[in-house]
């Protein structure tokens, strides 16, 4: 679904992503691991079109989409859950979700059905339907942004640190949900700090270090790699 080759991106003089190549197959769950500042989030933002690449290429479903706008990427079928979550604080939960379906707002019935489905998966969101997004707890906000991303009916989901700052039982819940989403045939690219948990559910993994791929392989291979800690912690 996604193929990235020799991708480079950065902020001014800072080069955050330095020649990364990776692939994400259909229905696959691939995780990208790495320490803080390894370039994981920049990589995700570049694929989503929110950060302009300075070099390399991005392919979506075989099409060259290098440098495409974020609007175009969503319409192609890519949904992004950024690390910063970015719940719209003064929009209600329902408005947040409806905006998630912006690109298919004409399909009124399908959107309504999906909205009901999301409320079924996340009963907490149904309870808080008319509450402003900014008043939700961290865990609820995370559920909201994942549900909001799913409202666009994507083929590929980019998840950036979905477990960040959540209580342990919530983290388990989020990971279970990621597996459920994978079971529906969705392709997922997951960035995680919680490496052991991510490797438990992923098919394959990449380890990023200082903007470059330091290791790649199946989740099992990466788990067993004796120098994982060294790479991960930048030692």
């Amino acid at each position, binding site marked *: 679904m996604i193929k990235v080759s020799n991708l480079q991106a950065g902020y001014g003089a800072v080069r955050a992503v330095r020649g990364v190549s990776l692939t994400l197959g259909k229905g696959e769950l691939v995780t990208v691991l790495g320490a803080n500042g390894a370039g994981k989030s920049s990589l995700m933002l570049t694929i989503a079109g929110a950060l302009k690449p300075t070099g390399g290429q991005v392919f979506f479903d075989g099409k060259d989409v290098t440098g495409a*706008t974020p*609007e175009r990427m969503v*319409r192609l079928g890519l949904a992004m859950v950024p690390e910063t979550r970015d719940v719209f604080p003064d929009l209600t939960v329902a408005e947040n979700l409806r905006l998630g379906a912006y690109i298919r707002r004409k399909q009124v019935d399908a959107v309504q059905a999906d909205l009901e489905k999301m409320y079924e998966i996340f009963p907490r969101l149904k309870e808080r339907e008319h509450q402003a997004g900014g008043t939700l707890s961290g865990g609820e906000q995370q559920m909201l942004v994942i549900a*909001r991303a799913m409202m666009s009916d994507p083929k590929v989901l980019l998840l950036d640190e979905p477990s960040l700052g959540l209580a342990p039982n919530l983290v388990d819940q989020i990971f279970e949900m990621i597996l459920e989403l994978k079971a529906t045939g969705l392709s997922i690219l997951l960035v995680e700090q919680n490496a052991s948990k991510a490797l438990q559910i992923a098919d394959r993994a990449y380890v990023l270090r200082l903007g470059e791929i330091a290791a790649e392989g199946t989740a099992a291979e990466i788990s067993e790699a004796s120098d994982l800690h060294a790479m991960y912690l930048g030692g």
Partner: protein
Amino acid sequence: MVGLIQFIIDFLSLGGAYALMALGLVIVYGILKLVNFAYGELIMVAGYTLYLVGGTGMPWIFMAIIAILMSVLFGILTDYVAFRPVRAKSVTAVLITSFAFSTLLQNGALLFISPRPRNIPLPDIFTETIEIAGVITPIRNLLTIATAVISLSLFTWLMRRTVIGIAMRAAATHFTMARMLGVPANLIITSAFAISGLLAGIVSMFWLGRIGAVTPGIGLEPLLIAFIATVIGGMRSLQGAVLGGFLLAFIDTGLNYTLPQDLLKFRDAFTFSLVILILLWRPEGLLKGPASGQRT
């Protein structure tokens, strides 16, 4: 009693006009985090349009609609000329281009029309007065109140009930995130400028109606009023802009009624002193609004 009714009518009509002006400025600021300094010129454009179509003899309401449409058009033009080419660059660049566009429009009016005031056509109803409970008040004031109520309700409906309105509120806090949901950036920004132009156009009818004439520099005062109202109300909040507009009108009207005759010419000094006090008390404005993302 008579004084009180008089005061309320004066306050509400001035407040309605101020609130609409402030709203037009803050809708663009909310999304771009940039003040459109060419905002006042939209009122000037509406005024000159009214002057130019004045001789055609068509009913006033059509002239007014044409003038308001011109204001909308120039609002959108501001985006294309002053904002879009340099939007991604720096705040300073946009600051300068919006000032430049403002100066350009003013000088255009100076050069092609006249530096002297030009009378604009006004309907008879604007100059008539009416007596309510013993108070004689211009009908124009009541029309201003009614128009403000209708415009504010329509605006609220637009922002709460339509997809574009919800998308605009979303873009005001997390612009990039809204784009990552498929909301087209340019559509949102252009819509904001169009609404800004619409509000400026509507308010200009009453603002110019008070004066009866248009000059190239007419936009400065509305810009200043809108800017101060949004600063007191809270730059990030649409409700804040409305509140700020009414509060500023309350201060202005209150001073008009209470200041002795020989101090009245210093009214602005008193107004600004009160504004400074409000800002010392609430530096972020009265309504904080949601924490907003970075400039886009």
